[in-house]
């Protein structure tokens, strides 16, 4: 079921939509449980689980000890035993104690057991920069997880998608790393259907149609990119494609847009080297080389550790940098 215009809606921020999505899935399916650090009584440090503890009790909304490997490792066991755990990692920068569990087990248990055991688990984590936070609170390391076969990686950029993609991730029979761009947790509101619905995984969304150049992006950068595109209107007609699911990538949407424009840029916060822009570029070269009219531009974070916040605004791509990159592609 997908949302249509006649459905009842609420005006929610992205983080409220995440909470609404969790609520809806927990309400319709007793097997869905939320676990993690401070997700219970505190309602999550970003309030993404607010009220769930009061509604569903401490057997389904579980404050765990401070141990990410423990959180994800036990969630894998629970998932293999028929529950649908949704562990929260407080910030993406603290997911690494669980990295072994995610890549060595969540991603492989289906393959390893020839389908006997599966891992219907969604690991949620806020990610990305721009909130004046301490060290390790600002990175974007989605590429680590995209690189791991057997994991899906999903990033919403609007409240409506946040709820629909989260529901689809929870109902998906395989493990999903669900990354929430915290810079835009409360940056704007949007209409979100009140009833549960799913937004399909693996489908990109065109946020702005254009004919001169395709810009592929996701998460908090989607907003920056649309802003840059709007500023270029009249000069350059920019198409903005929000990938939404980073694994599996929507190759068809990428190629279709590129065939139309023949020019492309990719915008992401993550460092350039080994970042997803390289994968998207290579995919275009494989699928649509003969349509290509200019080198594909990567507008990304630098190959440096994310700086403390006094300098973070220099690190993050913003409209000026994005516009320059787009112009370079178009003027080639």
């Amino acid at each position, binding site marked *: 079921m997908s949302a249509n215009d006649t459905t009842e809606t609420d005006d929610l921020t992205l983080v409220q939509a995440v909470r609404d999505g969790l609520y809806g899935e927990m309400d319709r399916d007793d097997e869905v449980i939320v676990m993690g*650090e*401070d997700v*219970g*009584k*505190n*309602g999550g*440090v970003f309030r993404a689980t607010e009220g769930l503890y009061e509604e569903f009790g401490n057997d389904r909304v579980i*404050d*765990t*000890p*401070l*141990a*990410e*490997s*423990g959180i994800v490792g036990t969630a894998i066991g629970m998932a293999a035993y028929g529950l649908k755990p949704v562990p929260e990692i407080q910030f993406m*920068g*603290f997911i*690494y*104690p669980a990295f072994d569990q995610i890549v060595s087990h969540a991603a492989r248990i289906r393959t390893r057991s020839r389908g006997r055991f599966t891992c219907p688990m969604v690991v949620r984590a806020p990610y990305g920069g721009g909130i*004046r*936070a*301490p*060290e*390790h*609170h600002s990175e974007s390391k989605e590429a680590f997880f995209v690189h791991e076969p057997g994991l899906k990686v999903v990033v919403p950029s609007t409240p409506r998608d946040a709820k629909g993609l989260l529901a689809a991730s929870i109902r998906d029979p395989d493990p999903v790393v669900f990354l929430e761009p915290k810079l835009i947790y409360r940056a704007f509101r949007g209409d979100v259907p009140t009833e549960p619905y799913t937004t399909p995984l693996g489908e990109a969304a065109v946020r702005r149609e254009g004919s001169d150049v395709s810009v592929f992006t996701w998460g908090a950068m989607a907003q920056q990119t649309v802003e840059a595109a709007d500023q270029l209107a009249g000069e350059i007609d920019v198409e903005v494609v929000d990938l939404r699911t980073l694994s599996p990538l929507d190759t068809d949407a990428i190629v279709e847009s590129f065939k139309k424009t023949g020019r492309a840029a990719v915008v992401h916060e993550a460092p*350039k*080297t080994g970042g997803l822009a390289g994968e998207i570029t290579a995919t275009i070269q494989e699928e649509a080389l003969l349509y290509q009219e200019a080198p594909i531009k990567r507008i990304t974070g*630098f*190959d*440096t*550790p994310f*700086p*403390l*916040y*006094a*300098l*973070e*605004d*220099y*690190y993050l791509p*913003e409209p*000026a*940098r994005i516009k*320059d990159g787009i112009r370079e592609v178009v003027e080639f």
Partner: protein
Amino acid sequence: MSTLQRDPDTRVEILDEDGRVRDGATVPDLDEAQLVEMYREMRLGRHFDQRAVSLQRQGRMGTFPPMSGQEGAQVGSAHALRNDDWIIPSYREHAAVYGKDVGLAETLQYWMGDERGNQMDGKPVFPAAVPIATQIPHATGLAWASKLKDEDRVFLCYFGDGATSEGDFHEGLNFAGVFDTPSIFFCNNNQWAISVPRERQTASQTIAQKATAYGFDGVQVDGMDPLAVYKVTRDAVEKARNPDGDAPRPTLIEAVQYRFGAHTTADDPSVYRDDEEVEQWKDRDPIDRLEKYLRAEGILDDERIETITDEIEDEVAEAIEAAESTERPDPAGIFQHVFDQQPARIANQQAAFERLRDRHGDEELLE
């Protein structure tokens, strides 16, 4: 040494809640100047904390983790170290690292989002560790390396009650036991890991008892009694430096205390704990207790306290002034210290970044 060899649930205590020496307790051998300095540093820490929180409220600083209530544990333990012994902090030990000559201005600079505040050049202090418990194996490694170099330094690592749930806590302490490193693992058990209470963190009765599994001493101390903290840390330092026969060098100290304020300025503790609980712990305020003791001993009086109050207010005001008037970090700093030699790819990115700044100017880029 006997202070350390006791049941992990018999807490070492010296001062009672009113600052009187408890029956049978012995006050550690500290001279007047040291006692007054400990008191001054605790007062300084408290005042610094209050000012830092208000700087954050005024938008002059980012997220800050306050430490009010925890000064006794920090100052008492740091004072038990020799000048060249090391501190491996987490992120809340503003008063402990001050004892290693890390200026308040540096601490502010770090929390104002400037890496240079984390450099602490030449001081035996490791940079703040934000990912919980990750500094514990480093502390073991530092101590191990020092032992392999035949030095006689001691390495004191701070972490919280929540940190004891992480794998790194186990691995760091296990290595310390196996390789008999000159280590002190100092757990600031402030009862809460953000909203998660100590009982929810571990089913162990105490944190100190976990040391038994690693084969060395674990001791619980009243972490809001700076004299008791000093005493157990002092004994642990002695043992790490000059172990008695086959006695293992490492010690786990559980300093039982309370965080009076929020976890950080981004946290609202009223959601998860009662004011009543906070008030009960405030009756054990480490500063009040030491002050009462020092007054009773005739070491402090109103006049000296007033002088100290004036001095610390000036010192904190000067530190804020210094931190805020430090020139902002050069954006080129993003590209520095990534490697010893800058690879060409990073150099190219830096050059492109400088061209971008030239084209647009910082104002447009940062708007």
